[in-house]
C-alpha cells in the first residue's frame, strides 16, 4: 500500500446513468443487474464485475470495467421498460484514491463525515470536492480505497486539489 495517498485515473470503463421508470419493480431491476437489491447511497459489485452506485432516489450510476463500445446500448436493452439508461462513458472521469492516508486526505476536500463508522466499505455519496461535484464510494477492498466519478471537464481541478492537499498534509506531518 502507498504510504500517503495516490490518485489514479481509471480508464476504459463504461459509465451509465440509470433511472427507474415510474412504478418499476425494484426487485426485477436488481435481478436484471445480477444483484439481490438496488443499493441506496451504497455501492456494490455484481457478479458480472459491474459496479452499481446509488446516487439519488431511484437513480444509479453503473460502471463496467473493460466495456465494449456498445455496452451502454446493450445495458439499455437489458433494462428496457424497467429503467432508462443514459451512456455517460464520455462525460465522467473515474479515479481511484488509495493509500494509508487516503481517508485523511479526502476529508480535507469533502464536507461529509468520512469516519469509518459513518462512511465505510460500500458507502456511497454524491457531494462536492473543491467546488466540483463528485460521486464518491468506498470499495469493498481492504484498507481505505475510494473511487470517484466527476464530470470530465473538472479533472484538472480535482488533480490540482489533490496535489495541493497532499503537499499540505505532508508539510503538517
Amino acid at each position, binding site marked *: 500500500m502507498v504510504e500517503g495517498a495516490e490518485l489514479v485515473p481509471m480508464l476504459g470503463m463504461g459509465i451509465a446513468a440509470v433511472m427507474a421508470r415510474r412504478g418499476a419493480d425494484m426487485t426485477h431491476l436488481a435481478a436484471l443487474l445480477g444483484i439481490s437489491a438496488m443499493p*441506496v*447511497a451504497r455501492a456494490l459489485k455484481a457478479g458480472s464485475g459491474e459496479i452499481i452506485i446509488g446516487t*439519488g*432516489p431511484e437513480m444509479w450510476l453503473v460502471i463496467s470495467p473493460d466495456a465494449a463500445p456498445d455496452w451502454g446500448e446493450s445495458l439499455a436493452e437489458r433494462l428496457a421498460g424497467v429503467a432508462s439508461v443514459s451512456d455517460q462513458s464520455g462525460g465522467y472521469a473515474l479515479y481511484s484514491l488509495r493509500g494509508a492516508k487516503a481517508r485523511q486526505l479526502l476529508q480535507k476536500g469533502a*464536507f*461529509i463525515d468520512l469516519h469509518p463508522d459513518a462512511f465505510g466499505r460500500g458507502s456511497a*455519496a*454524491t*457531494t*462536492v470536492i473543491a467546488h466540483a461535484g463528485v460521486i464518491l464510494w468506498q470499495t469493498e477492498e481492504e484498507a481505505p480505497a475510494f473511487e470517484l466519478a466527476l464530470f470530465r471537464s473538472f479533472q484538472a481541478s480535482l488533480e490540482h486539489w489533490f496535489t495541493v492537499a497532499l503537499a499540505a498534509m505532508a508539510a503538517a506531518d
Partner: protein
Amino acid sequence: MRIPCPYCGPRDTHEFVCRGETDTNRPDNDEAFYDYVYLRDNPIGSVREHWYHAQGCRNWLTVTRDSQTHEISEAVLAKDAAR
C-alpha cells in the same frame, strides 16, 4: 446550517439552492408577476421552502424551517410532499 436530505443525510447548505416558499403559485397574468417575483411574506417562525439538492441527489426537497432559529423540523422529497 445543515439540511437533513432524506436520501443523502445531513449536508451543508452550500450543496443546495433555495427556491423560496412552497405555497406560491406561478401567476397566469403579468400584473400578479411583480408580487410573485419580488414580494415575500417573510414571517417569523415556521416556513415551508423548496430546496434543490444540486450538489447531491439532484432532487427537490420540501423543508420546514424556523426562520428565527434555523431549526429544521422536517425535510422530505418534494415529489413525496406533493402526493
